[in-house]
């Protein structure tokens, strides 16, 4: 019995520590543009879409571009190599995942944080909107 149990314990302990180690490295933290400028790896920046600046998809440059203001109020142009994402115009908060180079943010991914995607919205009735899930 002993060697099998010891092997099992070692395997699971090793597996779990490796898993947590890798997990800790895989996740990053939500950040802002100033910090993103210092980072050479892919980062998550939270912010909101500046609707007063031009935005849109251009087929000739094959990018969707817009201006985003981060939580500190810093504004940067964001380029995204896909057609305008669904839900974009409606999102209250946007998370862009990618890299900042020379004051332009190259997004690999745009995540929308809508008031509630799986929920009806658009009513003025809600001041404190308790929402549902699926």
């Amino acid at each position, binding site marked *: 019995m002993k060697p099998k149990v010891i092997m099992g314990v070692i395997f699971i302990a090793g597996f779990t520590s490796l898993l947590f180690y890798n997990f800790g490295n895989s996740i990053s933290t939500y950040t802002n543009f100033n910090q993103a400028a210092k980072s050479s790896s892919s980062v998550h920046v939270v912010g909101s879409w500046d609707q007063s600046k031009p935005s849109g998809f251009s087929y000739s440059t094959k990018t969707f571009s817009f201006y985003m203001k981060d939580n500190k109020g810093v504004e940067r142009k964001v380029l995204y*190599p896909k057609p305008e994402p669904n839900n974009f115009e409606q999102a209250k908060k946007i998370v862009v995942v990618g890299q900042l180079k020379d004051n332009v943010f190259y997004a690999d991914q745009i995540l929308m944080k809508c008031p509630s995607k799986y929920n*009806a919205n658009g009513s003025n009735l809600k001041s404190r909107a308790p929402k549902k899930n699926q």
Partner: protein
Amino acid sequence: MIGEIGKILIVSAFVIALTSLFLYYKASRNDLKPKLEKTAHRLFALMGLLAVISSGLLIYLIFTHQFQYYYVYDHTSLNLQTRYLIAAFYSGQTGSFLLWIMWTALVGWGLIKWTEDEFRAPVMVFVTLIEVFLFSMLLGVNIGSIHIGASPFRTISEAMPNAPYLRAHPNFIPADGNGLNDLLKSPWILIHPPILFLGFSLMTVPFAYAMAGLWKRKYHEWIKPALPWTLGANLCLITAIFLGGYWAYVTLSFGGFWAWDPVENASFVPWLIGVAGLHAMVVQKKKDKPKTTSILFAILAYVAIAYESFLTRSGVLGNSSVHSFVDLGLYDQLVFFLGAVIVVSFGLFIYRWKDLPKSDASSSMLNRDFILFSGAMLLFLTGLVIIIGTSSPIIGRFFVNNPTPPPKSFYNNWTMPLAIALAIFTVIGQYVWWKNYDAESLSEALLGPLVIASIASIATIILGNVHNIEYMIYLFAAYFGVVGNGFVVARLYKKKPKLAGGATTHIGFAIMLIGILASTAYQTDFLDAQTRNYNHAVKAGKVMNKDGTKVSKTVNFFQLNKGEPTVIDKNLTATFVNMKMDNQARPGQQLYTIKFHYKNGKTYYMHPVIYPMLTTSTKNKINWAVSPQVKAGWFHDIYLYVGGSSYVQNINNELKSGNQVESVAERVKNAGSAPVSQDNSGKSNSDLVTFRFKRGQSKTVDGYTFTFKNFKKASDSELPDSAIIAVHAMINIKQDSTGAQKSISPMFSIVKNNGKKMSYAPPVTIDDWKFAVQFSNVKPMSDNIQLTVSGLKNAAQNDQNAWVVVVADRKPFISLVWAGIFIIMIGFSISILRRWAEDKRRTERMKAARSGAT
């Protein structure tokens, strides 16, 4: 009124469940008190009945559109089709609890009927305990300052006590509800959630049995009767997972069947742990074996359900899931539920630890118990990986502040080696299960499967151009799984096909693995020559952004101009044929037709869809949703969606210009909610656009810009005698896509007819563009005029300069994913039949023995 009844019913059901729980507890303490137990059964049945009646009431409220109730207001609307009104019953948080409660009551009823005497009361203690917890989520009562539960029968003013408008008007009834989210409007919603919740309810059974076993120190006897239920729970969960994945694949545009979204994971983890538990159970159902692993997995599977319910329903995932979840005020209660399940189950487990029969585990490594146990551990570890990833908002805080979810690669990198190991273990497990081997005889027996799997892998590697070494190993393991288990099935089929459930399931699993790799890693994008060149240039580092930096991302979309055949693959040409409005399906929905034409003459049409998400669109912004079209085939699927079009762009531009009187969102909405009346020409009346503007202003509507230049006095000669006033408006119209311009001057006049004043304004038809403009009103004393344009949508449909941006790809052998899952389902079903029959024989034998003894 009905709401009050509903609330009372739920509170009564909660109290009845508590009473029933107490009686079951009493009955279990004093072994076999049949009278007490009978009363408890009656109360349990009454509780179930009340749950059914409450659900009936809620459905009644939904069908009669009583929007003063928050649930009805928040999840339905007047124009919702009947089937979605039914689905709305469980599409919200509180309604889904009701569904869960009803299924659990049904499962409980089955347990009352089929469980043997000495287990019945203790098992029902735990089932009823779960029902008590679930009902508590729906109570909606306040004790002091503590809110318990959120009632599905709350009124909107109860649900939103702080809304200023509702404070002033507590009896306000909204004219219409928010409606069901458009993404959920799919027939799949009728079947996916009910099966998922049935799975959750069935998973209560092994949990309750294991707990009852621990409590009554019958560590052994619970496993056999719990086995068919556990199989049923896992069959339901895998079916629900498949339906969810297929739903996402065919109706959402994220391009696949699995995205490691926390909500998907929430149903996957209980399945993985449940299946791990099954493996432990089949080993440990024999009398002389230890039971700890079976008990532990039965507990863990339910803890996983409670934990995932907490994750998805409490709002903690709000930041990391594409499905957003907002707290319903149940956070504390869900934590309490989870905590109670953990404390009660692990508490009892630890309390009985010393008493539990332990393993002697002296046998060799190829002992079948050890192999199956290892397989179960692999399944459990896979579940652990997913739980840790999904829990990033919570446990990520130990590593960083404000943690983001891990990328998909985290899940893929960890589950892939586990899947490889699992595939290999399925074969070894099956071999040693049916026969005793030592290392030498096992290698000999496995020679056949090894050779065949190697040949198949090498053939695939060459034909499929596989370069990645990890994929090669994965492929080999999957083929080995198919062939090895195939050998076992073939052998069993000759003797006893009933026994082939396990091996069949394993074949399905291995086939699914092949499908997953082929359809995701070897997916190829269709692209036109221009985009291909662009991507080559990007890879060569030759494409620059405006600011001089290199473009690093290739793209996967291309443009099709109307009527222009475009080569998008070696032998394949695509043509954008036309766009039609499909208001019947959804107001404002556009149905695109794209023709695929192969060199060998084969032709077919794809019909992707774009529609405005009305529940989330506002007056000034339309939130577009795209729905892909999948052309399924044996060897590959063609997956295609329209990511943008000239029509959508025109409407967006129109909205951005922001000065129209009536917004498009409103117009689209009206087109949908107004009864679709047809006039004689067969054209829908909804194709009318009315807008106002002042002299000198411009409006853009559906790709045409209207400019109001000036008024012009009407000459007497063109007027009837009865005219009181008459004026022309000089309008310039520009077709935005071509820049072509036309000037018209429609007339507005007021005439006297039989003593009554009437307006007379003949529409001016523009033949080239196939629409008509009517000067339908004028505001006296201002420059403000109103135009009504009819046939514009037809004009948009007939626009010869229309284009679409298309994303299309080929997913090879995705059929194997579905085939694999179907085989898994068949395998599970065979096992259920076998274990069910086995258990029936066992209880009959016991009964016979008992009656023989007396």
